[in-house]
């Protein structure tokens, strides 16, 4: 029926809607210019830059230690992993071998960060499709992780725990015990998540077959993380370009072939289980030793180009450093997962309803400062 109207000679104006930059479903200052026909989306055009701080330009004037602190303002939900990305790039460039203890702690905290991020995503995702209670369940469990972080490094969200060469301080004596407590606690809570939301008939109807992304498109759009894995594209950086202590653990990469919103949702739930398993494998075996190796007070990278990928909660974060041998990078580029994932929003939302757009956007798990940088 819709196509008949579109093809007929009836003259009609496009109905534009300005979704954002202040809108509950855009999770920050993303602005979407929607062209709609009744309830049906004809075009989605993102307009970015409302929180652009030009971190890449700031990096060109800062030292490498300072750059680390800028990165957790990008994707603030995976701040630890962002820090790790820069530190790994610098360490690889200097060919600096960090102690085993550092690798273990980095990976454990990285996986905890991933769980925390997915908890928040799960809560907010529920809110986006109208189930308001999920938010508080997600936050209850995320709070425990934040408490662990706070005890260890003093910060809850923007951690700054990594420095080039290791960790800023050693872990807190309670860290191991509290992490174990959390793992035990959270194992009983993921089934609760499923009971509250996943099995719900309305939820299933809202998500199944909505926002379908094929595997070819996922690769072509540069999708990464759970978004790409929901389309059957195996792309886990932790598997293919393993870093830190991830080569010492075994875990499954969650994969689904449906490519719809429900698949992306289930991938993230599955990832929480996998992260728990990674933590369990590492937490008892943290080796004794130093928590950092000494670096020069002024780090100068050798001349050349360095690239490092890591898997944040949202997908593949790349750090590209072009160094001329001075104490600042000549050019530093962050390849953020959200930016590529956002570019496919138009592709998956066109033809759906406004409600579908919100549901698909929720499963893309966009963090706007990560896109704007």
């Amino acid at each position, binding site marked *: 029926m819709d196509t008949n109207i579109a093809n007929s000679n009836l003259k009609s104006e496009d109905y534009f809607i300005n979704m954002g930059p202040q809108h509950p479903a855009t999770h920050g200052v993303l602005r979407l210019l929607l062209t709609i026909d009744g309830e049906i989306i004809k075009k989605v055009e993102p*307009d*970015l*830059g409302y929180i*652009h701080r*030009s971190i*890449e*330009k700031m990096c060109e*004037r800062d030292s490498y230690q300072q750059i680390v602190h800028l990165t957790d303002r990008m994707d603030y939900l995976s701040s630890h992993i962002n820090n790790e990305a820069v530190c790994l790039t610098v360490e*690889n460039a200097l060919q600096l071998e960090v102690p085993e203890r550092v690798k273990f702690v980095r990976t454990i905290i990285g996986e905890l960060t991933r769980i925390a991020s997915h908890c928040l995503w799960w809560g907010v995702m529920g809110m986006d499709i109208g189930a308001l209670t999920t938010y508080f369940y997600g936050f209850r469990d995320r709070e425990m992780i934040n408490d662990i972080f706070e005890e260890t490094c003093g910060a809850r969200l923007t951690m700054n725990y990594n420095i080039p060469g290791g960790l800023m301080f050693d872990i807190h004596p309670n860290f191991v015990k509290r992490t174990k407590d959390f793992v035990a606690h959270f194992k009983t809570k993921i089934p609760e998540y499923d009971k509250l939301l996943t099995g719900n008939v309305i939820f299933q109807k809202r998500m199944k077959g909505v926002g379908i992304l094929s595997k070819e*498109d996922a*690769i*072509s*759009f*540069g999708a*990464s993380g759970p978004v790409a894995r929901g389309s059957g*594209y195996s*792309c886990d950086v932790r598997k*293919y370009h393993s870093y830190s202590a991830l080569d010492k653990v075994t875990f499954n990469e969650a994969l689904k072939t449906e490519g719809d919103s429900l698949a992306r949702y289930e991938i993230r739930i599955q990832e929480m289980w996998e992260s728990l398993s990674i933590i369990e494998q590492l937490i008892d075996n943290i080796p004794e030793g130093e928590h950092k190796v000494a670096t020069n007070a002024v780090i100068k990278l*050798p*001349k*050349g*180009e*360095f*690239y490092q*990928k890591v898997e944040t909660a949202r997908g*593949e974060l*790349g750090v*590209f450093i*072009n160094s001329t041998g001075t104490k600042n990078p000549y*050019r530093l*580029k962050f*390849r953020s997962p959200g*930016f*590529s994932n*956002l*570019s*496919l929003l138009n*592709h998956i939302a066109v033809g759906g309803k406004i409600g579908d757009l919100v549901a698909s956007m929720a499963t893309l798990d966009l963090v706007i400062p990560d896109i*704007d940088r």
Partner: protein
Amino acid sequence: MTNEALQNLINSWIPELEFTEEGSQFLNISVKPEQLHQLMSQLKSNTETSFDYLFCVTGMDWGKELGVIYHLESTTHRHIIVVKVQTEDRENPTFDTVSNIWKTADFHEREVFDFFGIKFNNHPNLKRLFLTDEWEGFPLRKDYVDEINMVIK
């Protein structure tokens, strides 16, 4: 495929390419602007290379030249290659778009255009992405000056 085999194969398509592995963990190819699109579409379509995943597009200002660095990965062979293209024309730098080869290039090229002023031929929607339309200059260029907003140490 190893870097060496890649180099031999790609060299057989287009003769005048420069290859280097110096100062980088990947194989770097420097290509002339007019050959960029041809090389890129072959890198994607050839079954032996099949670089189907363009994961990073970086705008660069080398001081004299402006250019773009493309990081490519193959999801079947899992090898990585870096393609560089540059021009000395700072007034009106123009390259061919690769957004018809990889859809992700659409957004990434707009970002490069926004911050470096590099134009892309045949790009479907080349306009500012982050900055406002009336913004003057291209902030990530090395010669960009903004005495009010930029803090220089």
